C-alpha cells in the first residue's frame, strides 16, 4: 500500500532528545537521544522495541502531551503544539472515562469541538456500529470486557476524525484471540480511511502483520536502528502469518532486535527476550 502512495511526510521528528533530571539525586536519565523519524502520509508505521526503549515516551511527545528537552516535531510542517486537532491517541489502559456511558465517551471529542448534541449522537452511533458495540451504547465502561473497552476507545478517537492515530500498545493488555480480532478490525478500518497510524508495540508479529513499515527502536538511549519495509500484500488474511515472506520478515526483525539485546547493558538477555516475543 505504501508503494502506491506519494511518500509525503506527515510527521517529521528531527534530533529529538528527552532527558529526565532527578533534582533530588542530581542524576539524569536520557530516554531519547538524537531521535529521527519520518512518518509518511497515510502509512501504517509500527514502532517496535523492547520495554523501556522510550517508544511510549516518543508517542507522548508526538501527541504534545509532554515537551522534549530538545529537537523538533512537525505535523504537516507545523509544530506539534498547533496540530492537536489532527491527532488521536489510543492508550494501552483504554483511558475511558468511567463516569461516562459508552455513548458519551465516544461523543467526548465532538463535544470538545462544540458539535451539536443531535449530530454528536448520530456520529457516535455511526462509530459504535463500526466497532460493533451499538447495543452497548448505554453501558458504562466497567461493564465491558477489555476487548470491548478498547473498541470503544478506538471508536472514540475515530469519532472526531483525526488524520493521525497514535496508538500506544493498544492491544497489549488483551488475550491472544481478542488481540488478533482487534488487529483485523483495525486494519479493516484503516484500509477504508486515509489515516496515518503510528502504532507502538513490543510484539514482532503484531508489528509485521499490521504495518507498512516497522521502525525498530533500540534502547540506552532510544533511537531508530532500522526501518523494515513490510511488502506483504493487503488486505492481509490471518494466514499471512504463516507465509514464507512473513517468516522471513520476522527473522529479519528478530535479528535486528537481538543485536540490540546484545548491546543492552545491565538487562539480562532472557528477560528482554521475553518482553519481545510475548503475543
Amino acid at each position, binding site marked *: 500500500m505504501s508503494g502506491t502512495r506519494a511518500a509525503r511526510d506527515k510527521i517529521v521528528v528531527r534530533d529529538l532528545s528527552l532527558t529526565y533530571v532527578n533534582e533530588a539525586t542530581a542524576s539524569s536519565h536520557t530516554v531519547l537521544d538524537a531521535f529521527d523519524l519520518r512518518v509518511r502520509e497515510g502509512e501504517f508505521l509500527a514502532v517496535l522495541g523492547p520495554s523501556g526503549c522510550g517508544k511510549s515516551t516518543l508517542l*507522548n511527545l508526538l*501527541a*504534545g*502531551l509532554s515537551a522534549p528537552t530538545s529537537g523538533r516535531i512537525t505535523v504537516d510542517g507545523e509544530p506539534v503544539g498547533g496540530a*492537536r*486537532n489532527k*491527532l*488521536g*491517541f489510543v*492508550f494501552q*489502559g483504554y*483511558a475511558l*472515562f*468511567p*463516569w*461516562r*456511558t459508552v455513548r458519551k465517551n465516544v461523543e*467526548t*471529542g465532538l*463535544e*470538545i*469541538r462544540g458539535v451539536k448534541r443531535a449530530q454528536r449522537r448520530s456520529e457516535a452511533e455511526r462509530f459504535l456500529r463500526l466497532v460493533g458495540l451499538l447495543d452497548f451504547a448505554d453501558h*458504562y465502561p*466497567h*461493564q465491558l470486557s477489555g476487548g470491548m473497552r478498547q473498541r470503544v476507545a478506538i471508536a472514540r*478517537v475515530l469519532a*472526531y476524525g483525526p488524520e493521525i492515530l*497514535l496508538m500506544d500498545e493498544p492491544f497489549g493488555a488483551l488475550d491472544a484471540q481478542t488481540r488478533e480480532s482487534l488487529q483485523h478490525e483495525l486494519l479493516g478500518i484503516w484500509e477504508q480511511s486515509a489515516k496515518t497510524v503510528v502504532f507502538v508495540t513490543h510484539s514482532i508479529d503484531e508489528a509485521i502483520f499490521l504495518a507498512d513499515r516497522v521502525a525498530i527502536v533500540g534502547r540506552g538511549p532510544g533511537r531508530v536502528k532500522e526501518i523494515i519495509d513490510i511488502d506483504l500484500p493487503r488486505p492481509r488474511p490471518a494466514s499471512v502469518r504463516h507465509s514464507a515472506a512473513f517468516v522471513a520478515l520476522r527473522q529479519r526483525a528478530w535479528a535486528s532486535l537481538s543485536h540490540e539485546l546484545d548491546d543492552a547493558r545491565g538487562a539480562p538477555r532472557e528477560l528482554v527476550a521475553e518482553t519481545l516475543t510475548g503475543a
Partner: protein
Amino acid sequence: MAEQETLNELPVLLGAKRSVARGARRGRGVNLSFAFERSIALIVFAVLWEVLPRSGIVSTAYLSPPSQVALAIARLFDSGDVWTHLGASALRSISGLLLAIAGSVVSGFALGWFRRAERIIDPLYQLLRQVSAFALFPVFMLFLGIGESSKIAIIVWAAFWPVLLNTISGVKQVERVFIDCARSMGASQGFIFAKVVLPAALPEILTGIRLAGAYSITALVAAEMIGARSGLGFYTLNSQETFQIPDMYAGIVLLALLGLLINKSLSLLERRLLRWRVGLAQNG
C-alpha cells in the same frame, strides 16, 4: 430497608448480578425478619425510655417519656410554631452548608491542581482547621454582630474543612491518563476541569459533603443556643430554662430528625450523581 431497596433497583449489570441474587434470596419472606432485626434496638430503646420515667426510676423532671415527647411535638405542629423553629434551623444549616460547599470546592480545586500553592498553604489550613468553630463564635459576633450572619458563619466554618480536604485529595488523585486523554482530544482547561477533574473527584467531594452535613447540624445547635430567638436549638434550651421538659426533648428529637433528613438527602444526591459506580467495586 433502604439498602434492600437499592439492591433490588440495580440494573442487571455484570457486577450487580451477585447483589441481585442476594436480594432475591432474601426476598422470599425473609424481608420481614430483616425489617424486624433492624427495629429491635429501636423498640427496646423506646420501651426503656418510656418505662424509666414512668416507673419513677428516673425523675420526670429530668426525663420525659417518649409518649409525652410525642404529644409535645404534636402540640408544636398544631400551633404551627414548629415551622418557625424548624424553618429557621433548616434555613441556617442549609445556607451555611451551601456557602461552605461553594467556597471549599472552588478553593479545593485550586489547591488540588496547583501543587505549589498547596505546598505553600497546607501548613496554614492544617492549623486553621483545628480551630474549633465554637471557639470562633465570639470572634464572629464581634465582626458580624449577634444576628443571622454570625450564626451562618459558624456553620460555614464547621462545614468548610471536611469538603476542602476531600476536594484537595480528590483532585490530586485524578488519574493522569484521564487528563492526558482529554488533552489529546484537544480539550481546553475549562473542559478538563468541568468534565474530567470534577467527575473524577466527585466521589471524594461528596464524602466530604456528607461529613459537612453532620458538622453543620452540630454547629447549628451551638449557634442557636447563643443569642437566638428562633430555631430548634433555641427552642430546646428555652424549654429547659422554662422547665418545659417534654418540649425540650421534642426540640432534641426534631433536631435529630433534621440531621437525619439532611444526611438522607445528601446520600440520595450521592447515589444519583454516582450512579456510574454501581458494580464498579466488584469489577475494578
